[in-house]
């Protein structure tokens, strides 16, 4: 039977087992909106297209399934760009459908026309303009395949309005057949063998694991690997949750705001095992002095990540989960492992001494105000760590990374690569849509939360009990901290002179709002908030404005040169 493009769109998404779309309608996609009006797929109506893309992103990070977005042409599409760039930088699987003016009008500056394929070329893994309705199923199949395989990423499909009206036979392909796209999954056997030999000959090994571990679903394999060999393990911001934050081998995060132990261990290691991480400048600090004594093993599915910033001794191109399984299979017998653990025992002691010497901490302010870090510790205690945490960007993000322990994968959602303020609230909503019964908390700054605050209405509309913990310092705190340290305390335009009353704002949206200024109030507010199951709640914590994130490695310095608390 023949179907029109809009119905083919819906039928194709059903074939891809899509259960949720995040979207916002407009003229160019009216036909699709008509088709999805009565279909099984849930549609979440957002308040701004950026919100839709971050929600799909949060949904994808929390579930591992690709997020799906639907927006109209022109301004709908351009509003989605920041979300796509965010997902692209963090390799998040996503398929974004944009409306487009009819084929005959493309290039004519037609009403609500934007060359979104051109605009998003550098911030999508791939994109398509559909020029014939007969290609539609093939393109959708390919898009989901490309978004979810290899190094994942967002894929965009631009749908001209006439294509949505045109009819053709609906035949959905079983497989995407793209001869020019063949990601490598299995590691090279010889390289795997070399890596195992190098590890077994090391005395001071460290595992440095990133977001690739989560993307490939390899948390179990990583945990097994590190525990079996007794390898001290550090995570990047993107990697948090990939190794249990509660494990004695866990060093905490490394890099600019990494722990003393993690940064010292990486600086002194003789064997750095980089897994699904990409030597980002926020991780390495001054690159020439990063891991200066180490032989480096680097496992990554993306060959362009290897030897991009640092020279690697043993590169292994492949899927992290596959390669870790191959490594685990090549490990020697229990006796040899015992010997190896003896050979590295002294190193583990040294690392533990570093961890003891400078624990993560903070000073209680003399003015008696709340510490933002304290609030996060209390959130951890109250939830017993059983929560999905989304963050905004800035100090709130770093404290959330440092002071909450992530025991399980896919529980920490944060814009690492692009650092997008306004990411956290919609991402939390996306995760809550996927897991209606889980506790989902957005740890926010008072600046960032205002960048997508309109999505409060979305959360209210769908009865999503997202918890928003605003660490309210009345400053663009992270920027203020840089001004304090590196610009002679000249606080140029970082004080939020006017601010809404977040409690009243929550109420205006039909949500719940609480404020806490003392430790007692923190207990009350968190306890009350966690009980709310049918609507979002804002917890406005008035915190010490002058608090900073420490340790801190000043930009351009080696990572063992830390400013400590």
């Amino acid at each position, binding site marked *: 039977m023949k179907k029109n493009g809009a119905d083919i769109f819906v039928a194709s998404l059903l074939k891809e087992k899509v259960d949720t779309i995040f979207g916002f309608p407009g003229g160019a996609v009216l036909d699709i909106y008509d088709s999805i009006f009565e279909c099984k797929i849930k549609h979440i109506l957002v308040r701004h297209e950026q919100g839709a893309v971050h929600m799909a992103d949060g949904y994808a990070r929390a579930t591992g399934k690709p997020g799906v977005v639907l927006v109209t042409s022109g301004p709908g599409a351009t509003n989605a760009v920041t979300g796509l760039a965010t997902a692209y930088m963090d390799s998040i699987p996503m398929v974004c459908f944009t409306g487009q003016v009819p084929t005959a009008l493309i290039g004519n500056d037609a009403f609500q026309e934007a060359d979104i*394929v*051109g605009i998003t*070329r*550098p911030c999508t*893994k*791939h994109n398509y*303009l559909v020029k014939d309705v007969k290609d539609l199923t093939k393109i959708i199949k390919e898009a989901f395949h*490309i978004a979810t395989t290899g190094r994942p990423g967002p894929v965009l499909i631009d749908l001209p309005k006439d294509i949505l009206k045109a009819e053709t036979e609906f035949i959905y392909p079983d497989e995407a057949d*793209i*001869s*020019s*796209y063949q990601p490598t999954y299995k590691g090279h056997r010889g390289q795997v063998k070399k890596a195992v030999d190098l590890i077994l000959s090391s005395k001071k090994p460290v595992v440095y694991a990133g977001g690739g571990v989560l993307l490939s679903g390899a948390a179990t394999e990583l945990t097994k690997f590190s525990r079996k060999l007794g390898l001290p393990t550090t995570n990047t911001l993107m990697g948090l949750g990939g190794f249990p934050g509660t494990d004695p081998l866990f060093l905490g995060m490394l890099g600019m705001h990494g722990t003393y132990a993690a940064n010292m261990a990486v600086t002194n290691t003789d064997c750095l095992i980089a897994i699904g991480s990409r030597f980002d400048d926020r991780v390495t600090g001054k690159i020439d002095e990063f891991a200066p004594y180490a032989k480096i093993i680097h496992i990554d599915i*993306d*060959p*362009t990540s290897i*030897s*991009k910033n640092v020279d690697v001794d043993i590169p292994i191109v492949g899927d992290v989960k596959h390669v870790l399984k191959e490594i685990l299979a090549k490990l020697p017998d229990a006796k040899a492992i015992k010997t190896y653990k003896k050979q590295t025992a002294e190193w583990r002691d040294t690392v533990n001494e570093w961890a003891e010497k400078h624990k993560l901490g903070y000073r209680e302010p003399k003015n008696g105000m709340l510490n933002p870090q304290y609030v996060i510790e209390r959130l951890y205690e109250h939830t017993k760590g059983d929560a999905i945490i989304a963050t905004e960007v800035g100090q709130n993000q770093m404290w959330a990374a440092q002071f909450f322990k992530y025991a399980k994968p896919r529980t920490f959602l944060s814009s690492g690569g692009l650092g997008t303020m306004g990411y956290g609230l919609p991402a939390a909503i996306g995760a809550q849509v996927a897991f209606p019964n889980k506790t989902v908390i957005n740890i926010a700054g008072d600046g960032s939360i205002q960048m997508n605050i309109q999505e409060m209405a979305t959360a209210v509309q769908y009865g999503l009990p997202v918890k928003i913990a605003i660490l309210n310092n009345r400053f663009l705190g992270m920027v203020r901290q840089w001004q304090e340290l590196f610009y002679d305390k000249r606080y140029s335009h970082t004080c939020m002179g006017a601010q809404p009353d977040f409690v009243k704002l929550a109420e205006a949206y039909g949500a719940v709002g609480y404020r806490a200024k003392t430790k007692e109030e923190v207990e009350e507010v968190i306890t009350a908030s966690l009980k709310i199951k049918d609507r979002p709640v804002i917890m406005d914590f008035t915190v010490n404005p002058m608090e900073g994130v420490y340790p801190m490695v000043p930009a351009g310095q080696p990572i063992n040169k830390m400013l400590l608390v």
Partner: protein
Amino acid sequence: MRHTISILVTNEFGVLSRVSGLFSGRGFNIESLCVAETTDPGISCMTIVSIGEERVLEQITKQLHKLVNVIKVHEFTKEERIERELALIKVQVTAENRAELLSVVEIFKAKVVDVSPKSYTIEITGDHDKIMAVLELLRPFGIKELVRTGSVAMARSPKTK
């Protein structure tokens, strides 16, 4: 360092801007670029010449591999490639220097393809160095106009049996 890269891509709209975008996105200048269909009409071959640091170029080559429409990327060393460019050069000519000009044309196995009382248009093919050498010799005559193609390159066949 001058790099000559040959890229096989699927013959579709938008592929050229994906490829050139990788260069411009990293602030790399493309010195020349040639594209045309191969024997398979579904596949095009691009030859790109670019000047830049080894490490950055290696990164671009890897990134090119990653593009969904790219089938194969190969960077040629000078020894292993045959490389040709074509140039059309319009040169001023007078009764006095005509003979001298024609001897340059002959030495380089170039061709005169258009003649007017005051100018000759010369066609020449050759590798980059040869084109540069001809231009050097023709400059004193007065070059009125010059158009050049980019390089196209192909691997030499192995010399051993």
